[in-house]
């Protein structure tokens, strides 16, 4: 004996949740001002990435009588080795960094989540094959590989860079998503949904993905920050082709030819891109914190 009213009740709740999603987003954002700050930061960076280069003349003006000028009203972060405004460099350089990060994150999440879901959902042979492949990917050390690859290849565009970083980086996401899928499966989730005659697409898109969204969001965070980290790092090490307005190149020149770590003259030149990285990371962190609450049913009270 069992009552027939149960499934209907659950489906109803889910519908309500979806309807309230955007309202929920707004509420979650509003609850903590820091989250709003995060969203604003990201918006500013997005604006910089899209319109930043249009704000300044190309090429950027130089003032060769003011090399490594200290911060002033005209140059809030001083000037670089040839007298170009550092702030302008950071702003115009954001496009490269952000484009790479976005491409990387997209590839990481799509490929990683896809493979992870598929492996965890299908199990059996597919799972074994895909996970061996993932393990192998995780086994090959990323940064050393990038170092070697950067001598073999020349990453001439941000998209190319993001593509390589993304294709190198999806392993962790795949693993995490797979284990989440397996654990949901263990809770009888999938079998129950199947038993109710729901389609695979429905199960994956409506039942599994929402549950894993925080996980995937967190991994997207790691992917974005990882992409920023990797590309700026490679430029910092100087193994990637020179880009005039690039955060990593700025770090490299500040440290290795400006002496930013020895004296203060080039310090603003070092700090400006560092601050940009920190701020971008902070923005992402705050927004993901909000996303976590929006997607995580445990944190959501409704």
């Amino acid at each position, binding site marked *: *004996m069992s009552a027939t*009213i149960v499934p209907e*009740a659950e489906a109803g*709740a889910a519908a*309500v949740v979806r309807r309230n999603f955007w309202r929920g987003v707004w509420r979650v954002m509003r609850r903590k001002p820091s989250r709003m700050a995060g969203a604003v930061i990201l918006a500013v960076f997005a604006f910089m990435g899209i319109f930043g280069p249009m704000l300044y003349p190309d090429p950027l003006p130089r003032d060769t009588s003011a090399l490594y000028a200290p911060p002033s009203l005209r140059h809030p972060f001083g000037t670089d080795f040839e007298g170009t405004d550092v702030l302008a460099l950071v702003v115009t350089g954001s496009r490269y960094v952000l484009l790479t990060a976005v491409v990387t994150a997209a590839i990481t999440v799509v490929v990683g989540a896809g493979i992870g879901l598929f492996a965890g959902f299908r199990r059996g042979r597919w799972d074994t094959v895909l996970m061996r492949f993932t393990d192998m990917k995780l086994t090959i050390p990323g940064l050393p590989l990038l170092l070697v690859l950067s001598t073999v290849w020349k990453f001439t565009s941000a998209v190319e860079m993001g593509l390589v970083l993304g294709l190198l980086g999806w392993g962790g996401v795949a693993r995490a998503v797979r284990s989440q899928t397996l654990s949901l499966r263990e809770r009888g989730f999938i079998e129950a949904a199947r038993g109710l005659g729901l389609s695979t697409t429905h199960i994956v898109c409506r039942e599994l993905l929402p549950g894993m969204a925080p996980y995937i969001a967190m991994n997207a965070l790691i992917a974005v920050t990882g992409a920023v980290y990797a590309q700026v790092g490679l430029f910092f090490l100087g193994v990637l082709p020179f880009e005039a307005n690039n955060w990593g190149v700025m770090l490299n020149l500040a440290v290795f030819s400006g002496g930013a770590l020895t004296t203060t003259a080039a310090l603003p030149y070092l700090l400006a891109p560092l601050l940009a990285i920190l701020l971008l990371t902070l923005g992402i962190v705050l927004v993901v914190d909000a996303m976590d609450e929006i997607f995580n049913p445990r944190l959501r009270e409704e």
Partner: protein
Amino acid sequence: MAPEHSPPGVRIRGLTVVYRTPAGELPAVSGVDLDLPPGTITGVVGESGSGKSTLALSLLNAVQPPGRIAAGSVEIDGLGDVVALGGEALRRARGRHVGYVFQAAQNSLNPLKPVGKQVLDLGRSHGVADLRGLLADARGLLDRMGLDGARVLDSFQHELSGGMRQRVGIMLALVLNARLVVLDEPTTAVDMITQATILRIVREVHAERGLTTLVITHDLGVVAEVADRLAIMYGGRVVEQGPTREVLAGPRHPYTRALLGAIPRLVGDIGEARALPGRPPTLAGIPADGCVFRERCPLRMDVCETGRPPVVVRGSRSAACHAVRDDDGDRPAVTAATGEDQS
């Protein structure tokens, strides 16, 4: 180890539990009065979201945040008002005085520890001096429930089947000699045979140990099988209660009728079972005023919109419905609109 004194009685008065939501505090249980007479099995039946599990948790003053008990009292013999309890006193009451068989008993055990160790943890938590004796009791209880007690105590959760886990859950609720036992959905997610076994065990243990038992379920059949008394919940209110037989034989509240009508019977046309139209209210959807059931009620009247339905007590039975009148005996006011005639 036979209990010396008599089983405790429980008197719930005006219990209101609210959940804090962005839309303000919303009641999940509002103004519930319910008695659990000593030595009886009481069944609470309701759909998801009816507040029945919240009610059960209130017996332990264990409503999880963001919920809280806003008003009312839960008077338990030998403990007093648990709503007023807190800290260590409350913790000691849990398990010791009130045994709780968890809703998802399937996952109510620490997966990394064998059952026996968890029994010991329980004993240590409650200052049991004779831990060896406690283990023996646990084994005895498990044996009593038809398991190989010694083996089960050595097992991890994942090594036990659903029914076994459920029985372990019951064992953990009883092993400290609690006399008041709350079973939250004891038979959800087990197969029919196991369900029958579990219910038999609940009945037998209840009788043997002289307990006061509360069974929370969405399944009227379960209640019919074990409960002496029955309370039907809807939208956070008890809409009808009374001796099980009487209520089932002559439901007075339209909701009770609808529930009964929705049960497919082993004998007869499956088409006779009628699902209840509409949905149970969500927390935010519970009407603040008037009858909570009116949206789905076939007997809806104007008065249902505004006035809270009076609780009509007749003997040991009561119902909260404008359509049920004191003088109306067992029959509802409007016979024309019974479940059978619904389309």
